[in-house]
């Protein structure tokens, strides 16, 4: 009886994930030759540690917790040995939820929710903000070039470049269309940098502007009528869909959400789009995107390049917006504060808050927030258009 008991226990231990992890490490370590192969050998525990670090950043440091926490936990689940909870493990729960990412369903639904919460008033009141939203997309295309030079394929380079759009759902959408194999790294890089906007942007903004420019107090924005607010989402959907059809699902859903809000007649739909629906989709999106990051795909030199290029994309996007802000400062005879240009890199409303903060450092009575919201929401539209261009040309 005792023998049977001990055999059962030994069998259980041999079949456990723990034993599998140890045996994998021993086998791979013995056959490893290069530094990367040694890293790959300890891949499983290393990925678990990375997921714990991301959870720590989300919970303790508040780095975009709404998405980073599910992403980190998805990564944790996917790397549990023998649990088969990766997004690619056919037949499992995560696999089926992942189909919403793979088929490009979740990001537009997130955009619907964002639309119900976005106020396009400052952009309608000051349409020239669109230009700064466009200029901040410079980072996307320059990073595309950098990634191509580093040896990534065209579609992979496009998916990496879109990190510069500073828009998580857009980055995920483009990555699933162009380079699904890089999805985990791109999503993590995009959300990490979005959380780091208050640290990355101010030095660039200060470097590119003079004290006088930063101190510019802008005129108050005009009142926007309800009719304008209602026509705006319809007009934007029409124009964007006609010019870049592949951006239609993102922009169309964003504008549908906004029309719900501005029409004022479908309060229940507005609430559902911005709360329950968005929260549910956020959980599915986060967990399944995190669960694409297995040790084999994530622990590679490519991930390091992606993280590096993401930073370049963000920085160039910020610089592009600020430099265009300077052009507008000159053209308008000093009426535009160039600091609002940096908000053109989406990341709503964080980037606009950074413009406000840097502006107030120069002049405590300067309130740039509403002015910066114009380029900020224009950046969302701009990055969706840029995403459409990349998908059309490279997809």
């Amino acid at each position: 009886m005792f023998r049977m008991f001990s055999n059962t226990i030994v069998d259980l231990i041999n079949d456990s994930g723990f034993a599998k992890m140890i045996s994998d490490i021993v086998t791979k370590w013995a056959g490893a030759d290069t530094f990367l192969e040694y890293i790959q050998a300890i891949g499983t525990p290393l990925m678990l540690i990375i997921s714990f670090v991301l959870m720590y950043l989300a919970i303790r440091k508040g780095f975009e917790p709404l998405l980073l926490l599910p992403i980190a936990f998805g990564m944790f689940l996917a790397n549990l040995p023998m649990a088969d909870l990766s997004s690619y493990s056919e037949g499992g729960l995560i696999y089926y939820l992942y189909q919403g990412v793979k088929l490009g369903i979740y990001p537009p639904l997130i955009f619907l929710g964002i639309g119900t919460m976005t106020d396009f008033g400052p952009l309608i009141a000051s349409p020239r903000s669109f230009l700064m939203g466009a200029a901040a997309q410079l980072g996307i295309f320059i990073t595309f070039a950098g990634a191509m030079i580093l040896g990534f394929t065209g579609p992979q380079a496009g998916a990496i470049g879109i990190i510069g759009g500073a828009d998580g759902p857009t980055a995920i959408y483009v990555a699933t269309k162009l380079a699904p194999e890089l999805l985990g790294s791109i999503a993590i890089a995009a959300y990490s940098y979005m959380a780091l906007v208050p640290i990355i942007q101010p030095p660039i903004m200060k470097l590119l502007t003079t004290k006088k420019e930063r101190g510019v107090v802008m005129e108050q924005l005009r009142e926007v009528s309800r009719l304008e607010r209602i026509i705006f989402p319809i007009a934007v959907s029409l124009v964007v869909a006609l010019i870049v059809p592949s951006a239609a699902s993102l922009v169309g859903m964003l504008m549908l959400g906004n029309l719900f809000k501005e029409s004022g007649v479908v309060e229940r739909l507005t609430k559902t789009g911005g709360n329950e629906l968005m929260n549910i989709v956020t959980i599915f999106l986060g967990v399944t995107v995190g669960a694409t990051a297995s040790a084999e795909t994530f622990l590679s030199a490519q991930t390091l390049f992606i993280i590096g290029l993401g930073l370049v994309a963000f920085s160039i996007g910020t610089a592009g917006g600020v430099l265009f802000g300077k052009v507008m400062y000159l053209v308008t005879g000093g009426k535009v504060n160039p600091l609002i240009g940096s908000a053109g890199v989406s990341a709503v409303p964080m980037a606009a808050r950074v413009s406000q903060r840097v502006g107030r450092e120069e002049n405590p009575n300067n309130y740039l927030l509403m002015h910066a919201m114009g380029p900020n929401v224009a950046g969302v539209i701009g990055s969706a258009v840029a995403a459409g261009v990349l998908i059309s040309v490279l997809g």
Partner: protein
Amino acid sequence: MVTNSLAAILPMSLEAEYGLGTMIGGMILSGLTTVFAALLILILIVYALGKAMPFISQKNQKNAEDKAEQGAAKAAAASFQPAVQAADGAEDETVAVIAAAVATAMADSGAPYAITSITRAKDARPVWGFAGMTQNTRPF
């Protein structure tokens, strides 16, 4: 449409034909041009809409004023009628209370109005039945 033609101009096979530099340059140029073009068109539309708004709102205001005048005339005509026709023998106090409640509710709109009759609503759905229905249909 534009991007379709872009795809025709810039297929990835051009990398082999023209080299990496040309392809990257072409992508940066065409990508940024498309983004700027789309947003410039939007600027024009929003700008035109902003310019048109004062005229539209003026017209709306005029219509509203006309309606208000018509409403006032109707109210004046109604005031010549002998009294509110209260059905079911409602007492004057009840009529006064209903009129006060309507006045409070209409105060914000500022539109003129006249109470011409007060009729007791049919009690087709008892109040508890109504509460039950509201609770059950709230999620939809």
